[in-house]
């Protein structure tokens, strides 16, 4: 009898312990890599003691799918989002899934970097350029170099199915005269592959499986500093950019903590933290991380936001059709 009681108690206690792990004051869904997400959360917790934060990381498309599945099941877990691009958040705003909040920190940001109604705020600038393995024969300077014979079979890029930045990048290049979807067809003909997220590209080029990769700036610049045999270039035509915005979900049950999170990522301290991790902060008057050219030297390619929003689905399909999987 005593054994049975002990067993029941153990089960009940474990059940409670497991159940307690669920209760957090704030749940963040983010597309930042694990180490960066943890650093962001640690910084927020240091600035707001006593707020318990739980976070989930995945590529932007996957995390949105997870969120949509949860919304469909009537049980969205997330309170705040920190994901790759504003286009996705603009769509959520229009679907009424976001909560507006006018953060006092917005005064320190360029008006193009946040939603005028307060539904989302850009936190940093992440550009997509070219990385190469230092053993590679060519030092690419232009996007078109990736379609040259020297790069045949040696180019990898992230898939818009797995990365929000990759979708914006494809949509940006597709509207650049002289590049366009034809450029992607040339890449495909040159044996380029598109699979996984930016992490997979980093791994593949750093390991030497591929020589050239289309990738977000901070990953190779940071890994190079740790000794990885790679370089990053900002191609001469310019780079695409996403701004990793933050937003509050309309279904949040933790409004105050969520507002504090938005304020934190926009604050001096929060932006300082992103700088230290190797990101270009969005706030006015901040520097750039080591290894980056100054902000005015970086040439940004324009993106047509309304078209990007309208055509996301068909653009993903165009891209997938070009790089259609083969056995």
């Amino acid at each position, binding site marked *: *009898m005593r*054994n049975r009681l002990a067993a*029941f108690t*153990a*089960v009940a206690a*474990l059940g409670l312990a*497991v*159940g307690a*792990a*669920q209760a*957090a004051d704030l*749940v963040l*869904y983010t597309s930042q*890599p*694990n*180490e960066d997400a*943890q650093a962001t959360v*640690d910084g927020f917790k240091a600035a707001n003691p006593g707020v318990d934060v*739980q*976070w*989930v*990381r*995945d*590529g932007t*498309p*996957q995390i949105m*799918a*997870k969120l*949509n*599945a*949860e919304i*469909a*099941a*009537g*049980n969205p*877990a*997330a309170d705040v989002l920190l994901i790759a691009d504003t286009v996705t958040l603009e769509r959520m705003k229009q679907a009424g899934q976001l909560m507006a909040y006018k953060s006092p920190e917005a005064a320190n940001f360029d008006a193009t970097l946040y939603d005028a109604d307060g539904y989302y705020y850009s936190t940093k600038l992440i550009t997509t350029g070219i990385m190469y393995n230092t*053993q590679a024969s060519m030092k690419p300077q232009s996007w078109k170099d990736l379609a040259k014979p020297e790069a045949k079979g*040696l180019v990898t890029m992230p898939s818009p*199915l797995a990365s929000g930045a990759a979708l914006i990048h494809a949509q940006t290049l597709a509207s650049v005269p002289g590049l366009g979807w034809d450029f992607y067809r040339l890449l495909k003909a040159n044996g380029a*592959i598109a*699979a*996984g*997220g930016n992490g*997979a590209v*980093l*791994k593949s080029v*750093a*390991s*030497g*499986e591929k*020589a050239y990769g289309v990738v977000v700036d901070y990953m190779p610049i940071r*890994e190079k500093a*740790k*000794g*990885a*045999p790679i370089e990053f270039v900002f191609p001469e035509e310019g780079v695409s950019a996403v701004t990793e915005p933050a937003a509050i979900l309309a279904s949040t049950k933790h409004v105050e903590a969520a507002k504090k999170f938005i304020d934190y990522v926009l604050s001096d301290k929060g932006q300082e933290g992103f700088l230290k991790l190797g990101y270009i902060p969005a706030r006015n008057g901040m520097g750039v991380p080591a290894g980056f050219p100054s902000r005015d030297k970086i040439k940004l390619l324009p993106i047509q936001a309304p078209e990007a929003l309208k055509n996301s689905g068909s653009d993903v399909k165009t891209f997938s059709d070009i790089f259609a*999987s*083969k*056995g």
Partner: protein
Amino acid sequence: MKRFRSSANGQPGWLFPFVIAAIMVLSVLPLGRLAATGIVSAFSGGGRGVLTDPGLWQPVYNTVATSFFGMIAAVLLGGGFALLLTLFDIRHKRLLGFLFMLPTMIPPQVTALSWISMMGPSSTVLKAIGMAPPLGSPQPLYSISGIAFLFGVQNAALVFLSLRAGLLALPRDAVEAARLAGASSFQVLKDIILPLSLPGFAAGAAIAFVSCVGNFGIPAILGIPASIYTLPTLIYAKFAAFDAGTFADISVLSALIGILSVLGLLVESRVLRGRDYRVIGLSGQIAVFRLGRWRVCAEVLLWLTIIVILVLPLTALVASSLAPAYGVPLTPASATLHAYQEILFRQAVTQTAFVNSIGLSMTTAIGLLLVSVLMGYFLVRGGSRYAGLISALADIPYALPGVVLAVAFILLFAAPLPVVGISIYGTIWIILLAYLSSFLAVSLKPVTSAFRQVDSSLEEAARLAGAGFFRRMTDIMVPLVAPAAGASVILVFLIACNELTVSALLWSAGTQTLGVAIYNLDDSGSFNLASALSVLVVIMVIAMMLLLEAMAKRLPKGVVPWHS
């Protein structure tokens, strides 16, 4: 009437309803819900879109091809080991058997990660000996044959166990008679032992095939980067691009996996049809054959295999966990423990994952212990005519691939529960329920076989002396089945801790398991963190297996799988 019969039998009236309720929740409801959605969407044409999509048949082909060749590799590896270790005078059999079991117990995504670190241009091991392939060489494992080969390594132990059980049950007198009649060792092997061990080969091959069809970890890590999808990874990808038709699509795909698994088992029974393998006479360990001067060769071969399939990949895994960044050559100067510091002391997600996995596995193991002691008692002693049906229903969820089971639970629990109106989808409880369902068979088997060994007269005597049900359970039955129950707890714990497939579809914020954490770390490009966490998991697995090994002597035969 039932109540009367039950009490005459000395069982409390609630036992039968309890067993029925457990089997309903853990097996009948989720599988029924999956079947219903599949059938509805097949008839309403919702599934037609999936089935006519040309993009579907490539994954089906990939699944069949990788599983078939994986099965061949598993049969060659596992069969060779079983024959050599069981029939010949090889030294250190116990140790070799234990080491050969390890790749099966290590989570598949860890196996895949460790092989990636061993092969390809980035290999720290190959770089150290200056044999790394040149820049731009594709990772050879990102291919159908790479996936099939690792399937073979992962599942070889299943063939090994099945064949070994068959070999140990061979009729001793047939072998001795042949020997007395002057047959050479080779003739005995060719004409008696190999034909009689065919059922063991076939069963092992079938289990290996089914296990390959449902494997998620290996094709997820090796196949997705090269756009090679198998059915389980296709379900995962569909789920990761969730839209309105997703539930219908994945239920149809799950059904396809189920059909492939059943086909594998049907082929096995076809191979054995028309042959009667019942043997008469004493079975038991037959005298081993002497290899003479070939023994050293055989031993070298066995140890080389262990080195290639176990030691080298794990060394490579440890090496990548110590490298400062991807692609940096590992030297004593560049080695760093940063990855371990990061995952152990900074990353909240790995701590959450450890707490979740260990909590879930313990709760599952202990919860299932309660269920399987009562259910096992009912099956053995209850005298119910439904016993056969119930034990079959308990087996099905374990035999099904984890992806299929996860989909079944999503379908069942996506909507809020009736009456209470809360949804357990996205909480830890849905993972717990899926684990309870999936591992019920693992827990039930040892307990049932232990109950069968207990003489019923003991309990009868206690009952005549006036002891109630609980008294008899706690004082007589439970102590007698305790060793087997203890082993079942460790087995369930071990398997649940390593699980990825079920939780990959069911996890949410705060409910990540170790398997999910490793997969996600690798996906975000933190290969060294993923490797470091994998190393810790491998250490945990080895510790648990050593614990079982230490308990093996006190357990009924067959409870510790790699013991005879």
